[in-house]
């Protein structure tokens, strides 16, 4: 966990890595499509979970939004909050549920401030989680567009309009 924590405290490096991985997967898309998304998903699940669990304490929701949440896994929040901290955060910035763990969202917010590439995306309103994607590879869902599919009536809001930031 220590290596993971060290990495997480370098959010700019992580967002660059994210950007790079995103490009690599997009480049490989035609090949993955040929091999079959389902098949590659099967191969990728294990390694993806292994790597992301070490670094982010990943919960394999299958619709990764790490770059929008300060490179901090919002699913590791006991309440699964994807749009910001609950009102129960302790005065020392620790979690309401686990008094010995820092609040995921306090960390997410602080880290987002050190992320010139994706930091602003913390202001995106995240749609409800598609629970049926749980356990599948988020990278493959990114390529197939599954992770962007929202409930039919949902109105997406990109970064919320604010007078100043």
């Amino acid at each position, binding site marked *: 966990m220590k290596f993971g924590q060290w990495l997480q405290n370098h959010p700019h490096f992580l967002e660059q890595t994210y950007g790079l991985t995103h490009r690599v997967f997009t480049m490989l898309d035609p090949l993955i499509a040929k091999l079959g998304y389902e098949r590659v998903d099967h191969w990728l699940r294990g390694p993806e979970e292994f790597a992301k669990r070490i670094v982010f304490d990943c919960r394999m929701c299958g619709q990764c939004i790490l770059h929008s949440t300060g490179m901090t896994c919002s699913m590791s929040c006991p309440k699964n909050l994807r*749009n910001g901290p609950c009102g129960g955060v*302790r005065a020392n910035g620790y979690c309401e549920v686990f008094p010995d763990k820092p609040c995921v969202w306090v960390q997410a917010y602080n880290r987002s401030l050190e992320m010139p590439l994706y930091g602003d995306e913390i202001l995106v309103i995240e749609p409800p989680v598609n629970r049926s994607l749980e356990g599948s590879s988020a990278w493959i869902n990114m390529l197939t567009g599954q992770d962007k599919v929202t409930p039919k009536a949902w109105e997406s809001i990109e970064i919320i309009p*604010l007078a100043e930031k």
Partner: protein
Amino acid sequence: MNSEFKSDGRLERVLRSGRFAVTAELNPPDSADPEEVYQAALVLSEVCDGINATDGSGAHCHMSSVAICALLTRAGYAPIFQVSCRDRNRIAIQGDVLGAAAMGVSNVLCLTGDDVTAGDQPQAKRVFDFDSIQLLRTIKIMRDKGMFLSGRKLTTPPRLFLGAASNPFVPPYDWRPYRLAKKIEAGADFIQSQYCFDVPRFRQFMQKVRDLGLHEQAFFLVGVGPLRSEKAAEFMRTKVPGVHIPDDIVERLRKTPKEKKVEEGKRICVEIIQQVREIEGVSGVHVMAYRQEELVAEIISEAGLLPRPRIGGLSAQDSKVRPRRGNRVNGV
């Protein structure tokens, strides 16, 4: 602000008329007797514009909020239906919202909810299918687009005034105004805050809220409440999630002689109401007096907030301005 009413409720009318609103929390009974709800509502109804029916607050089981709302609307009161994401998934919640609206509920407060570990049944499964922002947006979609989240059409959409909570008093402090911005963008028409005991911090928060222009997009009601003693204060700030009480308030209660503590707690509450009332962007107060309901009327009276405006009958009564169908039951 949109001048068209989104609900048929009194709270929206009081707020949109520019008057200072008062809401109060009803402590739900651990009982199957409706009389206990009516007794509690009776003391509150004359002194406020909306009665909050809590949804298993502190993760303790009580009579359900939707049932309390149903009882209250039957008696002609104006409840605020609190919905927490802790216990129900999206299917249950959307159904409850329709049911509540059918029972005459005009206000819904969307909450994340205290975690199960805060209550006396920590073994329970936590749901949190939605977060409070997704919940707000979903109910807004039901109201404005007339459909469930799945896109399935509603024959009659609910008319609701949508509320959200805000807690400016816990970290990350700088983020709190942005969290509020998200809630308003997601659909909040009014905000009820956590207990405010730290007015300087609240002033700072409201400064940022005004800088972002949020005070013009939603009505902000500040949460207030009396402290019975320094022990109660100590309990609340250590055991109740999200409550911040500065040391000087605890100290003030400690220095007060035993027989005057309740009075002093009440006075602190009244002073806080008078202070926050002067802050630009504050549209009302939300009084939460856990196990001290008898004090609510005194506090509201001493803060100079009586009489409540009479819109459509008794104070906390909903104005039935929409005689839509002949057979509509008013339940007054």
